């Protein structure tokens, strides 16, 4: 399972990195989201998989999964959402103002 997860994470990061380097702003945003998913799974995988019950003490069990990475991931998900949302609106606004979402055309002004 760990090996499978590691490979999946690699695939996600590859796809995300590739998307981040593309011309279209939307694809870049999607790329960050994909890398984000990869990072979440990476955190979870490195903590060890399927070791014990979900970390809820109501469930009678000998051992529980490590709650700490889960707390971190939860935070990460929310922050991811906040930045993605902001980024998306920014891209939308840039398109409204400039009429393009092509990174090659978003080159700033010549005389900076």
């Amino acid at each position, binding site marked *: 399972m760990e090996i*499978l997860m590691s490979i999946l994470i690699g695939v996600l990061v590859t796809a995300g990195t590739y998307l981040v380097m593309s011309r279209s702003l939307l694809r870049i945003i999607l790329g960050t989201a994909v890398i984000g998913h990869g990072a979440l799974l990476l955190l979870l995988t*490195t903590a060890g998989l399927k070791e014990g019950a979900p970390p809820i003490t109501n469930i009678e069990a000998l051992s529980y999964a490590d709650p700490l990475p889960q707390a971190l991931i939860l935070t990460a998900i*929310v922050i991811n959402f906040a930045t993605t949302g902001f980024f998306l609106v920014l891209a939308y606004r840039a398109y409204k103002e400039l009429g393009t979402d092509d990174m090659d055309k978003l080159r700033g002004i010549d005389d900076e």
Partner: protein
Amino acid sequence: MSWVHLMIVLPLLFAVFIPLLYKAFPRIHTGWFVLVVPVLIFGYLATYLPMLANGGTAIYEIPWIPYLDINFTVFVDGLGLIFALIISGIGALVVIYSIYYLSKAREALHNFYVYLMMFMGAMLGVVLSDNMIVLYLFWELTSISSFLLIAYWYQRKQSRFGAQKAMLITVLGGFAMLASIIMIHNITGTFSIREVIAQSDLLVQHDLFLPAMLLLLLGAFTKSAQFPFHIWLPDAMEAPTPISAYLHSATMVKAGIYLVARFTPAFGGTPEWFWIVTFVGLFTLIWGSLNAVKQRDLKALLAFSTISQLGLIMSLLGMGSAALYFNPGDQGVQLHAYAVLAAVFHLINHSTFKGSLFMVVGIVDHETGTRDMRKLGGLMTIMPVSFTLAVIGSLSMAGLPPFNGFISKEMFFTGTLSAASLDIFNMSTYGAIIPVVAWIASVFTFIYSIILVYKTFLGKYQPERLEKKAHEAPLGMLIPPSILGFLVLAIFFFPNVVGDYALKPMVASIIPSAAGVFDDYAISWWHGFEPELFMTMAVVAVGLILFATLNRWIGLYNHMPQWMHLNNWFKHGLSGMERGSHKVIDWHMTGYIRDYLMYIFITIILIVGGSYFLLTDFTLYTENLASISLFEIVLALVLLGSTVLVMATRSRLTAVVSVGVLGYVVALFFIILRAPDLALTQLAIETVSVALYLLCFYHLPKLKGRSEEEGEKFKIGNFIVALGIGSLVTLLALSVNGYNLFEPISVYYGDSYDLAGAANMVNAILADFRGFDTFLEIVVVAIAGLGVYALVRLRLEKRGGTDESQ
């Protein structure tokens, strides 16, 4: 903290108040306030002289960064203290001089004196620090203040050019010196100069000895304007004349001399040190004197003469270093340490006569409006005091009695003759060159000294070619050069006062084994009819003949081939470097953020991947792996499929939906992997995200019209880099499984019910144990929300309140 520390810091502290004083007392020339500082320092440091004469030293230490062996250690010995006295003494005279030289109505005095104080503090720091890193810091500070002072009249193009040139060359040398300091530290394990000297044997035998020595000398030679780095000094003459007299003749350019002298006990006694220092010095001596003769600008002449005289002192230090080759007590020690005695004597003498000459030239410039010797002449009767001072200075420089330059010049000849008689370091073959070169250079020194006096003060007075009507300078301007001129004479008649209190302690610092060998030696200007005297007489005779026939041979200088003009080398080198760096920058700074990301990713692959392969051996960890069920394989396939789809699709909508699918699959994985809270959050967030994406689509009507089928080609290069990053992450994830460096701390949260009253550990961590973090996280979300709101609202207001998008 000792008083000596305070003396170093005092100018720097005082600099803070100069602008305030300038503003508060506009009627009083700021220089009068500043004058207090060097006088105070000189007075205090002079109290150490009796101690030195008795062979004592003092050391005071303030811990600064003890962990790195960097401490502000002040070491007062002969070498450092005499330099410090020259710095503060000449400094005081220069401040008096500048009060009359710089008009308080027109000049930005507050800047001037701030830079000057900065320089003085830095220079005192250089000569009194024992720690090499502290020395280096002060060293660079002198370069910076020199830069600021040369560019003091920054409106002039020439000033800016000269300042930049001086800065580039001296800072280059400074960096070399820093490298050398680090090498020395690696060899000896200390930054303290005294301790380095104590380990001289270790240093000399080490493999890094030669590079460390060469880099150190590079620092010294650039600072002291030795060939071929001397080219910055003539251009530095754009500075106001008090500065030229102070920095570029009496003190800063002697920092290189100081450095060589200071490190002589560590590196000296080796053939490399002897040869390089001696011959670079000699070559600079003759090159400077040859070039000085052809100058038409008075200050340029003095600049080349300074270069030449610095070369003389440098070569003497080189020759004197041979004394360290001999065992203490040998005859050779005294014989060759004599050259060091001559070096330090000439160093002091040079500060007196060159300082006064610079000031006189400044007076001429100030009172006639020009420094061009072709326009000057016949000023003797108009400016009698300046004339007298110029004669004293010039004849001392030329090495004639009854001036102090005569004695040190004779000692210089003695030094060259004993160096020629050396039978070590292969000197028996080449030794004879030294006195010959020294003699020729002295002839030219004599010629330019005469030119200086003759062309300025004798000859025909040409009032029509001068900008101002010439007249004698005010008394205040004449006092400082007069004091120096008086010293020139006084040292000639009473050389042993200087000898006992200054020269002998200095020699003891430079050649420790020679401490005490000169105790019974008295410097005197008369040695009887020795070879040195005949050499001087020949210099005068040949010099006078050549001066009389000057017009016949001065034209030879025009035949100097182009490649010998080192300034061209500097100019072409500089513009070449500019063009080169432009090319490099144009090549890699494309302006596409994509390319920069590419650089970042490639760097990550190289550094992380490279160190991974170099430092660890990869073993696939296969024990205790969790099981895989069919459901999970299906999920994995869905994840793979949607990922590939995101990458491959040309439709934006498909891409967005695929990312949504991807998010949901991740949520399902969370359920399997015992993380129900994450799954819940992920599901909620993913839903909102997809909605947001689609909402934005809805608001981008034109985009649909343009290219719903976004045509972006598959880029193999990008993909390879992306694959590299992905594989790297996979590798890291796999290797992490094998590591368990310490017990997880999460056991603590197992008691979450008892500790926080929550059965759900994850929630307890977020809301209780790390509640404050969560609070800040909410702040982040709120800020993002405000940003989104602002982005949307701002547009509406700008468009005059009409809401287009709704």
